[in-house]
């Protein structure tokens, strides 16, 4: 059967959202699909880039507008907030606490786990350009920078494609 490993089923996710809840859903599906033997690629665009920005250091953008933008839109898995009932961070804090009580992995742990399971993480070059996010802003699990054709190339061969 090992010869057939090349014919793995594929799942492709486009992550456009930088909300903690949506990012968690995406990584839960990615890790589960990988454990079901699927080949998974995750394509991060627009606010989704915030999910895969590194947590440490600053984002070194060029130009005043982009510099300011990346201060208010810093991103990083540990800075994301929930899309509802955030209440200035209190809601996110409570959800994270409840997740910890339930022994759920954090988003950060999910990203590391997904990478170890072979999930491919791709950052969209166009939104990186618009927002002034240089290549070194991303965590090491992000291996590729690519455009829409890469996403569609993966998506057209996939059994499952989701836009999150």
């Amino acid at each position, binding site marked *: 059967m090992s010869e057939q490993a090349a014919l793995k089923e594929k799942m492709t996710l486009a992550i456009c959202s930088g909300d903690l809840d949506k990012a968690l859903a995406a990584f839960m599906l990615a890790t589960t699909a990988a454990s*079901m*033997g699927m080949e998974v690629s995750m394509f991060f665009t627009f606010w989704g880039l915030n999910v895969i920005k590194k947590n440490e250091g600053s984002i070194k953008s060029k130009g005043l507008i982009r510099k300011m933008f990346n201060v208010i839109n810093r991103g990083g898995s540990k800075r994301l907030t929930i899309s509802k009932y955030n209440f200035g961070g209190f809601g996110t804090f409570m959800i994270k606490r409840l997740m910890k009580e339930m022994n*759920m*992995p954090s988003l950060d742990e999910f990203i590391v*786990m997904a990478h170890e399971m072979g999930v491919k993480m791709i950052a969209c070059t166009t939104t990186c350009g618009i927002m002034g996010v240089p290549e070194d802003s991303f965590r090491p699990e992000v291996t590729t920078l690519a455009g829409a054709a890469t996403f569609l190339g993966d998506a057209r061969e996939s059994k499952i494609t989701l836009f999150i």
Partner: protein
Amino acid sequence: MKADVSIDCVGLYCPMPIVKTASKIKELEPGQVLEVVADDKGIKQDMPAWCKATGNECLGIEEDKNGEIHVFVKKTK
């Protein structure tokens, strides 16, 4: 039901029992049986679905008095 290897997923929620099952089953030989003990009720639906997708065999699901669910998975290849 008897198992060759057992993993404890009590207190873990979806998708962790499935992720742990997938990584543990790699260490088994074909024909060996893995027991997964969990208390997330979702596993009763999820494990047969995982088995169907991966081609392994779900031999049975037993729930004990403590509410713990024992799932037996036979590695087929």
